């Protein structure tokens, strides 16, 4: 049995609680030994080994078991860490916020409860992965697409709750969420939106209902356990035209976003368009050591050779058009005129034997895959954390962020490896800080770099939309308008909804009252 315990709980009391939990979920679904608990660690953690490890794990099979288990957690004041699939490894994977928490593992709840072909949605439980939903749709002959996160083993619900993004026109996953069932800390079950109408047939069809919208409150939060969620699915379009345009110069980034902004806002380009930097793009095909075995960032002269060898630009822009062929044809003229007006732009409509092209084309048509992990070969050793500021899709802003962040990466000896993704009206900047987990100095530098970027980004007026467990408190503190009024509100809600502070304490920097002083 693990020697870790929830804070403030003695071994005998903990054992008693676990016995009660075993009586609810079945003895075989309570895990206390090191081997099964090792499945709940963050394989790519930026922290030293031995941090953020659980004391035990409990895997309920249904909502009723969740309700009963919550009674036990409340009775013993056990902190739990709730998750569905736990595959978001750039952000902590399944690991708990602090060592000693009890994992509340919802992977057994993996039913696809409904697929509605007519209205284009699915109703899923927390453990349903993108691959599972994709295969199910193919098996039943559905003409609906999914929108997977880049690694397809992630959870449909979890990714939406974490504000994740994909690459089809349905790429903003929380926007495409419709209707939730939530178990509150006291065991009460709430359905949001039209789900609160008895016998409603429209729970997954419309977000609107009388009264406030609460769905957002259960995302990136610790106010309840979401047990069902509706997700809109895109009807297979009659036409699909993926494309890639390479741009020669780093400073072209500003022109790219100035060109793409009207195309995105007016939905000429309907999907999540993305500008990928050279090293991210090439890392699916080769590794750093094939070009440069020295310390510090890859020199410019070698970057130019990489671009030349692989037919890439300093920025590589991917997007796609969807719909009836005549509409695609017309919209393509607008895209070509705008995006090809930048000097040096090269258009690609197909790239043979190019894994990066293949990976993007699959993602933009909703085919889950795991290719993104091959990018980790660039450095090797698996470590990576994503720094993810969000802002308006503005060329000047993008270039300013790029220059600031690239300089900081270089100051700390790292390559800039990033992409800018434009949703409908916003821009996600994803910097992937890669490091070798076995190189302690490199891991520590990656951690320090991330912390510095958080503060500098906040000083420049932009914040992150998502983050690794290790930085949740720091990022929460950057939201400091009116003396931190927003997080004060989160804390007031937390204290009312979860007075014992059992649900995922510290998630997104939201702590229960008893633990707040330590944060």
């Amino acid at each position, binding site marked *: 049995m693990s020697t870790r315990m929830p804070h403030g709980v003695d071994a005998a009391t903990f054992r008693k609680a676990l016995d009660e939990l075993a009586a609810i979920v079945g003895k075989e679904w309570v*895990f206390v*030994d090191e*081997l*099964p608990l090792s499945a709940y660690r963050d394989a790519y953690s930026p922290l030293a080994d031995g941090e953020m490890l659980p004391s035990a794990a409990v895997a309920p099979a249904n909502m009723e078991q969740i309700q009963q288990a919550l009674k036990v957690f409340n009775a013993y004041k056990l902190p739990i860490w709730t998750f569905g699939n736990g595959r978001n490894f750039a952000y902590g994977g399944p690991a708990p916020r602090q060592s000693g928490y009890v994992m509340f593992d919802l992977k057994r709840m993996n039913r696809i409860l409904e697929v509605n072909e007519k209205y284009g949605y699915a109703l899923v439980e927390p453990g349903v992965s993108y691959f599972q939903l994709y295969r199910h749709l193919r098996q039943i002959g559905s003409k609906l697409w999914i929108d997977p996160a880049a690694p397809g083993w992630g959870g449909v619900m979890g990714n939406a709750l974490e504000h994740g993004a994909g690459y089809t026109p349905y790429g903003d996953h929380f926007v495409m969420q419709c209707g939730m069932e939530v178990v509150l800390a006291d065991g009460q079950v709430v359905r949001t939106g039209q789900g609160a109408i008895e016998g409603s047939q429209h729970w997954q069809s419309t977000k609107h209902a009388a009264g406030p919208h609460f769905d957002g409150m259960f995302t990136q939060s610790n106010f309840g356990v979401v047990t069902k969620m509706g997700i809109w699915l895109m009807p297979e379009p009659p036409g699909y035209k993926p494309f890639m345009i390479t741009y020669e110069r780093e400073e072209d980034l500003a022109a790219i976003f100035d060109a793409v902004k009207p195309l995105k806002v007016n939905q000429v380009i309907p999907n999540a368009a993305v500008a990928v930097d050279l090293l991210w793009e090439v890392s699916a095909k080769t590794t750093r050591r094939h070009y440069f075995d020295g310390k510090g960032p890859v020199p410019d002269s070698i970057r130019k050779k990489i671009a030349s060898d692989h037919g890439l630009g300093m920025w590589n822009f991917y997007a796609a058009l969807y719909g009836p062929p005549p509409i695609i044809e017309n919209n393509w003229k607008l895209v070509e005129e705008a995006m090809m007006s930048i000097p040096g732009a090269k258009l690609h409509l197909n790239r043979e034997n190019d894994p990066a092209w293949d990976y993007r084309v699959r993602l933009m048509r909703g085919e*889950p895959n*795991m290719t993104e992990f091959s990018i980790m070969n660039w450095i090797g050793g698996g470590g990576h954390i994503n720094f993810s500021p969000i802002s308006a899709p503005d060329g000047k802003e993008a270039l300013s962020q790029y220059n600031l962040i690239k300089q900081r990466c270089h100051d700390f000896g790292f390559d800039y490896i990033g992409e800018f993704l434009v949703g409908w009206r916003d821009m996600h900047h994803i910097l992937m800080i890669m490091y070798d987990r076995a190189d302690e100095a490199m891991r520590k530098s990656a951690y320090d770099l991330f912390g510095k970027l958080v503060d500098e980004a906040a000083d420049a007026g932009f914040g992150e939309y998502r983050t690794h467990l290790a930085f949740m408190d720091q990022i929460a503190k950057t939201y400091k308008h009116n003396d931190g009024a927003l997080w004060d509100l989160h804390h007031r809600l937390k204290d009312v909804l979860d007075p014992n502070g059992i649900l995922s304490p510290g998630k997104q920097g939201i702590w229960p009252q008893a633990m707040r002083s330590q944060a």
Partner: protein
Amino acid sequence: MAWDVSRRTVMSGGAVGAAVAGLGIGRSALAKRPLKIIVIEEAEVPESRLFAETFVNSGRAAKVIRIDRTLNGLLHELAIGEGVLVGLTSDPAAMIAEQVLLADGARPLLKWAHHYRKMRWEHRTDGAPALLARASTGWPTVLANHMQDALGGSRQAPDLRCESGHCGLDGKSPGMLVSWAFEVGVQQS
């Protein structure tokens, strides 16, 4: 005490999990019975192909599962029932396999690292350093033979490190590889 490793070790199941956690475990038990060995080959990685080929040529591989560059097969093809899964793969592929197999109750048997830097391969394994160091670019063959010995119980000194002589790196090689083995679905007593 009988237990089933096809499901995760459970509460009140004793100290089984603690005893087997980590690397280099349970080999004596493995040596007592014939093993069905299934090799995972990462088709894009030349060293992985050579490693799998050695297992096949030795007659010890019951099956080879080839994973293409999407790595999707790691999610869908590792459910083999009973036996030992082995691989020499890229680091990300090893991580994915580990996550999937641990969640399914598999037992880690060994995990070794192979890292190319400054024109040499560095190997961190249990035993056989001299053989690996001399092998240069043919090291996956030596490794496969050594792993068969290790799984068969002829274990040598733990946690050794060695470097090859100067050698090139295949253009398709990631240059940082992991060799690994997991036991899955085996009833023990």
